[in-house]
């Protein structure tokens, strides 16, 4: 199959684009040049959609939500999306015909929640001089010509080019891809069908031999046949379960990997518990802080602070009072003595103080004088006693200082712990934010479910194996009986011979199948090594060479061999250029050994590749077929930077050059305004050395491109 052209209508920003591809065996290369965002990947997707419908597009969680139309299409109005691919197909007889595949669907642009689409309308026509003839069913034909499961071989994106070799792809999936590609492309699958047919013929002949050998033999044979059917049914069940197990194991590994990545950040439950503990500790610290502050406030209104600050002056006041007391100014007791003497009428010296006595008048005068001083003395006396009481209760001028240090220490300790805890809490919360809680739960549930199913599957496989062993034992017994019966009776000699021949053929076919598979793998392996080492410019025998060889193992793993029998990890020990070289070498070697004619479309294959490797890679994958090599077709979607260093080589091998551009790049990058109402992608026939009114870019001058008029460009 070689693709002649593709016509794309309303697929994303490709509103009406036709691209022709080179089908010239001498120039198998088509170069489609486009800067970032010009529509190279859109072209790849459009072709995948045209061939396989939505199944051909990259897998996303909700494929129906993928939009085929451009975001500029008005909401609510159905838009016809259409891709038409014209291709050549050479059948097994060597006859080549031209076909036109047309896929169309109506999509109604709307909100982001969905883009209602009708059923795909797929039609395939064989083009003939007398008129196009529809070929039915179109999807089945396409699947036969260019199987979807092998689309990775035919249509490759530079970004996921490592599907066949990467350790990041689960080993079962990777090995299955390599195995499937080898079986499909090398015709081993057809041989497998032949072996099954021979088994059927052998069984039928056996039954006939038995039938003609008498009722006992026939019954025994029927019993054997019934048992074999049981075995076949059990084997089919086993096969179904094994396939399901593989799928589930793939999911299990993917989910475990994702979960491990999420859990690598930290266990969610553990983090939640840690955060709760830290928050609780924060609260405790804050309470300690508040308690310390409350103690400080209490201290601010207490007597110890007063003693601490003004104690010296208070003590001076107390000392004055004590001095007054020492001088007996306080307390004032004479007032009471004078009053008592006047009341008794006799002085303490015995003199008469009765009214009318001369001395009484003198004492009365003394009493008045004392009364005048008594008020102040009284107050001083009271103050002295109060001060004594206060001092007795605790006149400790150091108490406030001690309390101050204690509360400050407590506050500081609580605050320091609070700061530390806050840091820990923020770290834990940051970690938790990185964990998608819902996803962890979903993955955990899914893993629990799939683990249980895998366990059930293992048990079921064990039961099936036991059943098969039991049936096979019974078959062996019946066959032994049958052999004895047949020996006794004279069986139809011709039928026996045919049966034996059929059995021999079956055994032979099975051995051929096994050998072919091994031989083909060896051939692909050898060619793979040749191409890979040639691209990277390695000599297997070089003393300091890192790459000694490449091979495909029995498990269909592609391994790169290094010094001393070691192998290299393709993810971590191969650089990007070598990874691309290895994948391209595999695709090329497989197609060469299989001898099939098929397109090989690769989007941005030369990223991360430069220098000699780039030259050799381009030379290897674009050179015209030589010798027995079948014609092939290479379509490379390249950026300007990928073309650099290999422009001359491309010009030698390319039969067609196409440049695609998108009007959204005006005026930032494009020189000319296309005057449209919405962004569109257009194609022109400019080579990497030319430009026109469609593709002219502001940086072209720096690259010395030749400007062409429109007539020449379109």
């Amino acid at each position: 199959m070689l693709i002649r052209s593709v016509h794309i209508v309303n697929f994303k920003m490709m509103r009406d684009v036709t691209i022709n591809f080179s089908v010239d065996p001498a120039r198998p290369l088509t170069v489609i040049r486009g800067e970032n965002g010009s529509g190279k990947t859109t072209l790849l997707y459009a072709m995948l959609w045209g061939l396989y419908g939505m199944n051909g597009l990259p897998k996303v969680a909700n494929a129906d939500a993928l939009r085929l139309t451009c975001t500029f299409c008005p909401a609510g109005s159905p838009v016809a999306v259409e891709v038409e691919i014209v291709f050549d197909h050479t059948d097994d007889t060597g006859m080549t015909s031209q076909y036109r595949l047309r896929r169309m669907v109506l999509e109604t642009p709307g909100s982001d929640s969905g883009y209602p689409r009708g059923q795909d309308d797929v039609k395939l026509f064989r083009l003939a001089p007398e008129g196009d003839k529809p070929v039915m069913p179109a999807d089945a034909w396409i699947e036969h010509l260019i199987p979807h499961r092998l689309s990775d071989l035919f249509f490759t994106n530079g970004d996921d080019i490592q599907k066949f070799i990467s350790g990041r792809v689960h080993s079962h999936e990777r090995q299955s891809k390599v195995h499937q590609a080898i079986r499909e492309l090398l015709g081993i699958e057809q041989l497998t069908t032949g072996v099954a047919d021979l088994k059927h013929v052998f069984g039928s002949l056996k039954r006939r031999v038995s039938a003609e050998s008498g009722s006992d033999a026939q019954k025994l044979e029927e019993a054997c046949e019934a048992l074999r059917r049981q075995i076949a049914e059990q084997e089919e069940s086993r096969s179904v379960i094994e396939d399901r197990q593989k799928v589930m194991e793939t999911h299990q590994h993917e989910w475990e990997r994702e979960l491990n990545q999420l859990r690598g950040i930290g266990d969610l439950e553990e983090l939640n518990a840690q955060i709760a503990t830290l928050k609780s500790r924060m609260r405790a610290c804050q309470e300690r802080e508040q308690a310390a502050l409350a103690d400080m406030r209490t201290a601010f209104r207490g007597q110890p602070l007063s003693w601490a600050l003004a104690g010296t002056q208070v003590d001076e006041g107390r000392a004055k009072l004590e001095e007054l007391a020492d001088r007996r100014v306080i307390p004032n007791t004479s007032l009471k003595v004078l009053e008592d003497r006047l009341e008794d009428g006799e002085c303490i010296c015995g003199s008469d103080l009765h009214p009318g006595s001369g001395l009484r008048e003198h004492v009365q005068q003394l009493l008045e004088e004392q009364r005048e001083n008594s008020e102040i003395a009284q107050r001083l006396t009271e103050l002295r006693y109060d001060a004594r009481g206060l001092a007795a209760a605790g006149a400790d001028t150091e108490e406030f200082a001690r309390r101050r240090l204690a509360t400050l220490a407590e506050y500081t300790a609580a605050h320091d712990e609070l700061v530390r805890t806050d840091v820990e809490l923020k770290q834990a919360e940051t970690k938790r934010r990185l964990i998608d809680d819902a996803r962890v739960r979903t993955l955990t549930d899914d893993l629990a479910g799939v683990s249980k199913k895998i366990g059930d599957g293992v048990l079921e496989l064990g039961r099936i194996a036991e059943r098969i062993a039991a049936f096979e034992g019974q078959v062996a017994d019946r066959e032994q009986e049958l052999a004895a019966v047949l020996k006794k009776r004279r069986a139809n000699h011709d039928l026996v011979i045919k049966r034996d021949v059929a059995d021999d053929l079956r055994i032979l076919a099975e051995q051929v199948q096994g050998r072919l598979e091994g031989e083909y793998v060896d051939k692909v392996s050898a060619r793979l090594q040749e191409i890979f080492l040639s691209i990277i410019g390695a000599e297997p025998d070089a003393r300091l060479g890192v790459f000694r060889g490449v091979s495909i193992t029995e498990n269909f793993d592609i391994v790169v061999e290094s010094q001393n029998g070691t192998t290299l990890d393709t993810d971590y020990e191969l650089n990007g250029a070598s990874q691309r070289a290895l994948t391209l070498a595999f695709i090329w070697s497989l197609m060469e050994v299989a001898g099939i004619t098929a397109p090989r479309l690769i989007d941005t294959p030369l990223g991360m590749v430069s220098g000699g490797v780039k030259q050799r890679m381009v030379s290897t994958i674009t050179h015209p077929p030589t010798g027995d090599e079948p014609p092939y077709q290479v379509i490379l979607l390249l950026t300007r930077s990928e073309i650099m260093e290999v422009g001359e080589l491309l010009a030698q091998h390319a039969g067609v050059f196409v440049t695609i551009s998108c009007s959204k790049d005006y005026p930032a990058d494009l020189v000319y305004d296309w005057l449209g109402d919405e962004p569109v992608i257009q194609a022109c026939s400019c080579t990497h050395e030319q430009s026109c009114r469609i593709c002219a870019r502001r940086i072209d001058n720096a690259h010395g491109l030749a400007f062409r008029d429109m007539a020449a460009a379109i």
Partner: protein
Amino acid sequence: MAEVINRYASADLFMPDDLHRVIREHVGINQPFARQIDAWWIGFCLGVRHGQTRPLPAPDRRVKFMDGAVLSSDPWRIIHLELVAVGLRGEEILTRPREVMQLATEHANYGLEMLVNALTGQNEPTLALMNFLDPAQL
């Protein structure tokens, strides 16, 4: 201890209004001072410790925040006040309660200014105040 007689109950307690504007913001729940009198008293103690006074400003630049009756709630303050007054001015001052209050107010004015400086611009004024009130440094 016998009941202390408050001879200053009828006296008005003042603060300069510039200081009062700050002090009143630091009175209440979770503030350094439960009452304005607590701030005034610390101001008085600080003034006494430093032996410094600040005259009460003119009536239009002062605020009466309380009367002397509030001293009865902490009678030990009356005793300290009078002992300080006696220590500074002699025993005769007790016969002139107005003079005792003036003495106290002028010392408090000085100390309140120190308090205001210590409190202004602090995130946790209680902590700042406790740090400030270091008897060894004052």
